[in-house]
């Protein structure tokens, strides 16, 4: 079939992460897709999230996270 053009392009890449890392990011109100991953194949690890948080970038209230 014909492809719909996706409108929601605000997120350019989808993060690789374990569910537990995703949970952590979510709990801390961080969009995991913004975090550079240091794990295998760029996987976002728990440490990456902690580091990311301490740099203080891009913290959003949870309610703003685009679904």
């Amino acid at each position: 079939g014909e492809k719909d053009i996706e409108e929601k392009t605000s997120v350019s890449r989808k993060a690789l992460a374990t569910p537990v890392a995703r949970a952590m990011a979510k709990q801390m109100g961080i969009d995991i897709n913004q975090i550079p991953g240091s794990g295998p194949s760029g996987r976002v690890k728990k440490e990456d999230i902690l580091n990311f948080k301490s740099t203080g970038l891009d913290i959003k209230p949870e309610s703003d996270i685009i679904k």
Partner: protein
Amino acid sequence: MSVMTIVKAINNALDIKLNEDSSVVVYGEDVGVEGGVFRVTEGLQKKYGVERVFDSPLAESGIVGTALGMALSGLRPVVELQFDGFTYPAFNQIASNVSRMQNRSRGKYTVPMVIRFPYGGGVNALEHHSDSPEALFAHLPGLKVVVPSSPHDAKGLMISAIESEDPIIFMEPKRIYRAVKQEVSDEKFSIPLGKAKVVQEGTDVTLIAFGAMIRESQKAIEMAKDAGISVELIDLRSIYPIDRQTVGDSIRKTGRVIIVAEAHESFSVGSELIGIANEEAFLYLEAPPRRVMGYDTVVPLAQGEKYYIISPERIFYEIEKTVNF
């Protein structure tokens, strides 16, 4: 092209194969003069004679066991079991012999046979007439398990099934036997076994379904669209071998997956697909894979079906939950 129902499409596939290959025979309970209780074999006895299309005694183990003997000796039997719940008397022949004879004979014998039967609920039937036993057969090594969801697929998959040297369990969604109509080519064509089909692309969540649940899923997808949710729909078409590639690709894309199937949810195709989602797309999962399936209860009679049968609304409910996880 002709407009066909699933009943007609399967009848047409049988007709084509009976016509072109004299080793094809069709039998089972009431498939001859009667043309089957759902009329899937209607007219075939008249056309091909009682030696090729015939009624058997009422014994499912016998139907399947003799078909195996025929398959081992040069015929290509296509046998009908009258309902899902009446596959169980044939279970031993299927589990102990049909599925194993190639391996037991180290490939000396192939087993070109098809066991077809109507399955699933939603038709106000008596007990044993509404089961969805795909997981039982898919768990047994040595079989291929196929379920079409449309007239086109029913025809193409049935042609492949009859031409396969491996034994095929062919499950027909009785609920949409005549409910879905489609333009289908009158020519012979086939659809490869083991390949799922992306019915509809989407980005937020993957729905995996088959048989009669495709139609219900499509209705749910309409509801989701109204709610701004983009759903990808995969029609599994083969339960075994299961198409890990297509399933994995989709889940890696959407990060979310819901399995919609009529069978009891425990130890089911739903369980297996959650396994596959984890094995193929673990790092992409943004929400727990979910199954929208039948309960672990006997499928109720007509009055209870409203509680048991999966409605588009219930699928939508799960889509929303998953997307908002």
